[in-house]
């Protein structure tokens, strides 16, 4: 009897705190909300979103047998709409038998080398991006949900430290712009909060699909800092931190951005 009352009491407390959390509304904004209406429409309309061409290509690659093993992704994973749903929402993650996290592209390359017995695809390669965007698209509209994994904590902390490090000739940190001054205008453009909600993204400035790494490098170049090589673990650490920071926001892949 007491136990039952305790359970009911606890449930009430949780419900109340949940309601309170809802009232203290989430003020985080996806970059989508700061785009013009025309770009929002372009992203929303699958026939106008240029990223969808790469999703289609990724779908073809998913079913294509490659490598010495002559296996396709589908041979192991089946229907991506089922097997890949939610995967991008919880990446980066630590692969089985490893002690370091990989991003989605890194995971795809592990599948290539380990299971398909194929060469890894180079960073920003079209097929690699197409596969990544195809996989991430299966999580569109799902909430970003980083897993509980204490092994990731140290890497997240490293990402947070990089995020707050003042660097480059202009001596700026990610946090100075994207935490302290988000919503203000840099050269007339609204500074976004830097939530990685739609990667890989189609960026009009690139006229191409590109990864979060490529986007991070754009900022590093902007503050005149030395960009890490494309395969550097620092990008994965930053992504881990950013995904934690964006927890609960919805994935939009493939996002369109100016």
């Amino acid at each position, binding site marked *: 009897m007491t136990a039952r009352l305790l359970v009911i009491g606890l449930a009430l407390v949780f419900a109340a705190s949940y309601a309170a959390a809802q009232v203290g509304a989430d003020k985080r904004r996806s970059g989508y909300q700061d785009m013009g209406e025309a770009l929002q429409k372009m992203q929303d309309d699958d026939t106008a979103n240029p990223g969808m061409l790469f999703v289609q290509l990724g779908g073809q690659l998913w079913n294509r047998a490659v490598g010495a093993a002559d296996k396709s992704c589908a041979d192991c994973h089946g229907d991506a709409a089922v097997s890949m749903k939610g995967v991008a929402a919880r990446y980066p993650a630590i692969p089985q038998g490893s002690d370091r996290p990989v991003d989605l592209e890194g995971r795809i390359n592990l599948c290539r080398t380990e299971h398909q017995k194929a060469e890894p695809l180079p960073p920003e390669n079209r097929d690699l991006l197409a596969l990544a965007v195809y996989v991430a698209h299966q999580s569109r509209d799902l909430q970003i949900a980083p897993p509980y994994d204490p092994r990731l904590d140290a890497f997240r902390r490293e990402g947070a430290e990089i995020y707050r490090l003042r660097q480059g*000739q*202009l001596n700026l940190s990610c946090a100075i712009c994207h935490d*302290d*001054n988000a919503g203000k*205008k*840099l050269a*007339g*453009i609204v500074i976004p909060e830097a939530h990685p909600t739609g990667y890989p993204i189609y960026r009009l400035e690139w006229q191409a699909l590109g990864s979060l790494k490529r986007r991070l490098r754009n900022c590093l170049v902007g503050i005149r*800092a030395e*960009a890490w090589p494309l395969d550097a673990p620092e990008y994965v650490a930053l992504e881990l931190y950013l995904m934690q920071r964006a927890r609960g926001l919805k994935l939009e892949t493939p996002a369109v951005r100016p």
Partner: protein
Amino acid sequence: MRVLVLLALAFVAGPAVAQQPAPPVVPQIVDDSIPRSLTGRPGDAARGRAIVASRSVGLCLLCHSGPITEERFQGDLAPSLAGAGSRWSEGQLRLRIVDGSRLNADTIMPAYYRIEGLHRVARNFEGRTILTAAQVEDVVAYLVTLRD
């Protein structure tokens, strides 16, 4: 003989200009200002305006707005430059450009004439100040003309 001397001078000056190592001038700070020109000469206000307006040289309008109407895309992270010449003296403006962190350790404004205390500077900017001493003077000369 004269040619030889010139050649020798060119060798001495050559690498220094190409690599632009440590700032050749150590600015003398007095209270909250650097009263004396970094080059010993006054800057050129017209050149200074062009530097302020440039998105790749001065970078000023990325964060500040200013009375430069042909540049439509200006920032609002920092105060407007309009009236800067009324608010600050020439020496105060010079210190704010050279190294604003001397006045406010947390300022987000980059130090335009300092190379120490920076992290992970891109190789092509390593050891170089954002502006040269002469460019700092040009910008100062322009800013003092901005009076309310």
